[in-house]
């Protein structure tokens, strides 16, 4: 893959960005579909119970209360998913914007959770103790985190844990995306695009394998225009 030319770089960023956006929205649409399905069937159950009551099969108040709680719970679940998706969608509004890194990492981790759940892998976050504000391309930062998680998920097994932690750094932030235990076959990795992406946002990406864990160390500095460094 020749990524030296500026045109190639822009094309790769655009194509991979769209693929990332598509992967997230497809996953969220499945989640929302599940929520709608539950509300749909719960509403249908309420109809069934009321129809039964009209034919002399009484419905207990507690049962109705549980159904109301179930619907409220699913609505809350849906609100959470939509909130994360909305924040994600607005991350493409500006090439460079100010964001709080703990929130950004929390948001993309939530949106990636379904990918981990399907493999029964635990996905956790360790935010920094205090809020850390950064100026950079928030969409690309999320994409880098997502791609690191995706690479680790490819070799992860049931009950493994992937943790995304945030550390403050003088020049920006350090994100550690760690999989335990270490199962990653480094020969299978394709880091070309991750390196291009992190290079574009002025950062670096390193992979460490040892001590029972494999770790992507992603350095994200404050934004410097790659075309006018």
């Amino acid at each position, binding site marked *: 893959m020749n990524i030296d030319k500026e045109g190639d770089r822009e094309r790769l960023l655009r194509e991979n960005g769209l693929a990332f956006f598509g992967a997230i929205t497809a996953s969220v649409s499945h989640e929302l579909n599940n929520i709608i399905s539950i509300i*749909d*069937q719960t509403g249908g159950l309420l109809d069934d119970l009321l129809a039964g009551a009209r034919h002399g099969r009484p419905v207990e108040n507690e049962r109705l209360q549980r159904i109301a709680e179930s619907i409220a719970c699913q609505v809350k679940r849906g609100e959470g998913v939509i909130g994360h998706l909305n924040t994600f969608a607005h991350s493409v509004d500006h090439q460079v914007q100010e964001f709080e890194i703990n929130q950004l990492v929390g948001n993309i981790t939530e949106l990636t959770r379904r990918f981990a759940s399907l493999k029964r892998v635990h996905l956790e976050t360790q935010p920094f103790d205090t809020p850390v504000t950064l100026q950079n391309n928030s969409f690309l930062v999320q994409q880098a985190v997502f791609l690191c998680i995706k690479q680790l998920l490819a070799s992860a097994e049931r009950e493994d844990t992937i943790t995304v932690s945030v550390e403050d750094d003088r020049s920006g932030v350090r994100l550690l995306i760690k999989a335990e235990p270490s199962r990653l076959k480094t020969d299978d990795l394709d880091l070309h695009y991750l390196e291009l992406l992190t290079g574009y946002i002025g950062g670096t990406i390193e992979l460490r394998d040892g001590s029972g864990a494999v770790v992507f160390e992603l350095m994200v500095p404050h934004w410097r225009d790659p075309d006018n460094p």
Partner: protein
Amino acid sequence: MHKFRALLVDDEEELVSTLVERLGYRGIKADYALNGADALRKMCDGSFDVVVLDLKMPGMSGFELMEILKAKFPDVPVLLITGHGSPTDELDEIPEKAYDYLAKPINLEDLIIKLREAVKSG
């Protein structure tokens, strides 16, 4: 048509438990399993005439589970549940071994029709 038993497999417990209850009100006996291992255990323990399973489940996927079910219980028809549209959105092709598919959100009356058709074919 003779009475039949259906096994519904999906990791969304509120969804499958509600479907089982609603099928019960319509005279159809059903049970549910939340994952592939649970489904295989229930299939071995009890006699089911048809299985309905979600394609996207944690751990063993619906597709993997169907392969095992068809090897162990070749006469039991399998209906697939897809997240959106046809299974070709999620798989390269509609699995030959599946009797048919349903897209979420499931319409209960459509499910009952497909269950009856599947049992009749089995």
